[in-house]
């Protein structure tokens, strides 16, 4: 008998009596303005910087003002108009080893935890939002939801081959519980809320 059969047989014999799956949780909707405000506050609390803009060109202007040289920026969001624009895929993520700034579209923002859903559909290569030293996410205000339950209603997480909720810059507190921002992923994170 294969291990697969042996495991499944043992599980079948030993499993407890069948119990139904509980109903999906849902909570009263939160007004859009309150949601956006909470989202912005939470992103700041997890170490990110929030900038509200009314159009994509404003992001370009912001980048120009703060980072001056467009060579430092890999921009995957059409319309920002600053940095090196990229449309096609990147074959090998290793070429991004020294990347300083990446601008990426996030499709959903979550108010309760400041997380932004970033998926393969919006990435030239999977490693981009992790390998860059500074990650800049762009989220439309109408795509900000109150909690994770609502996020999963909006998303089909299995449609892309890869997707992640990203909340702030990478961090660790493994040495004596001292919080250090900037572990293996980005050291800084911006979230632009497009209103």
């Amino acid at each position, binding site marked *: 008998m294969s*291990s*697969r059969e*042996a*495991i*499944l047989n*043992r*599980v*079948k*014999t*030993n*499993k*407890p009596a*069948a*119990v139904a*799956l*509980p109903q*999906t*949780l849902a909570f009263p909707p939160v007004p859009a303005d309150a949601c956006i405000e909470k989202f912005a506050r*939470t992103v700041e609390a*997890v170490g990110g910087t929030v900038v509200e803009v009314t159009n994509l060109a404003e992001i370009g202007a912001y980048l120009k003002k703060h980072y001056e040289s467009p060579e430092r920026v890999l921009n995957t969001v059409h319309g920002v108009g600053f940095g090196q624009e990229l449309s096609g895929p990147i*074959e090998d993520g*290793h070429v991004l*080893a020294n990347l300083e700034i990446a601008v990426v579209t996030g499709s959903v923002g979550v108010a*309760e*935890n*400041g*997380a932004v859903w970033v998926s393969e559909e919006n990435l030239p290569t*999977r*490693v981009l939002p*992790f*390998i860059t030293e500074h990650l800049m996410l762009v989220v439309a205000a109408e795509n900000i939801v109150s*909690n*994770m*339950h609502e996020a*999963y209603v909006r998303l089909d*997480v*299995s449609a892309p*081959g*890869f*997707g*992640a*909720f*990203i*909340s702030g*810059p*990478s*961090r*660790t*507190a*493994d*040495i*004596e*519980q*001292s919080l*250090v921002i*900037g*572990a*293996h*992923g*980005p050291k800084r994170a911006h979230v632009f809320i497009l209103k």
Partner: protein
Amino acid sequence: MSSSTYVAPTDHAKAADKFMEDEERVNWHDKALWFIRQKRDVASKQLPEWELLRETASQIKQNVLSNLDTYLEEFERHAKQNGITVHWAADAAEHNRIVLDIIKRHGIQKLVKSKSMLTEECHLNDFLGDNGIDVVDTDLGERVVQLAQEPPSHIVLPCIHKRKEEVGELFHQHLGTEKGASDPAYLTEAARQHLREKFLTSDLAITGVNFAIAETGGFVVCTNEGNADMGAHLAKVHIACMGIEKIIPKAENLGVFLRLLARSATGQPITTYSSHFHRPRPDQEMHIVLVDNGRSIQLGRKDFYNSLKCIRCGACINTCPVYRRSGGHSYHYAISGPIGAILAPNMDMKKNADLPFASTLCGSCSNVCPVKIDIHNQLYQWRQVLSDGGYVPKTKKIGMQAMATVLSNPTIYRVAGKSGRFMMNLMPGLANMKAVNPWAKQREMPEPPKESFRDWYLKNKKKS
């Protein structure tokens, strides 16, 4: 490198004695963990629906365990459709062989690994090391204990038992940081540079799995450091290792679990990264190893199968008064603290018979558990099972039997109470004698009351 130089102590109480020799460190350890417990409290109290989430999570896991075979088959079917290769391992040895076979097939000599308690449970690093494979743990805390040739002492905070000066010395020796430097930000930056080179030059990455979704055939890995993603997305081969109990039915169930996990673990609203893997990259191979290693046996223990609901947040460990003052290594099992103490006896009753006794049964672990495992009850029940099975030293067993007799018979209880008070008044030294009564080692017995509550109640009831 091999971690075989570390010899695990075999008795919790003895190992705890050793840990407690350094009182300053114990006090620091105790406070650091309590601080995390408090952060968990603050985070949980911000959600009015916290208790509903816990109850729902527990029920979802109950549903999973009661249909585990069908969910596993459903997961396998969908994962295969997604282009993921699925392996089944009955035990640790088979798991390790499967992983080594994949590594060898690709002619790989070194790999990066993010945190996976399952691979700790299977002693994968030692096995691969013995077979000439260079394994680099990429979680900062895990890298620290790997350099120190020790196992992790905590499932979420692997080097919580180390002071920053010790980490500084390790990094000075292995990574060439400045002698005497111990600033956490400086040491973290050194580790970032050291491990970035490993990420960029490794063709194979091993990760753990936090949740595997039956409905979609994908899996979720949670980290704060981004190390699982850096490894997996840069490697040609990704192997994800998981215990069979990590299955959840639907993607929407993640809403419940991801709201609970990080809040319970560290008080964060969510981990920095919650990565959902469904298909390999076009240029990549992706493997999942489904590991039983005793879980299907535990599933059949009606008093203990609830332990398989665990999502490895570590909340029970942070709150445990015994763990906080005895350290993770005193548990001599891959998973320390209260949850480890109810999982370990299933694996080896003889070797782990001491662990369910490493508890005050205060119940704090059960109170903080996000999936409502009745941990302290199970600790108590394991004591009975281990005692009946002859795995418990005689002195402990006689005491337990006497306690059971006394507590189950009201007349004997009253007599025993009287004689106890009588003995303590007559010979207070006996109860306080450290050699005869280990409990009295760091304690002074209280003044025995002159009469029992029952005597007092009967007397005062007559008056009114």
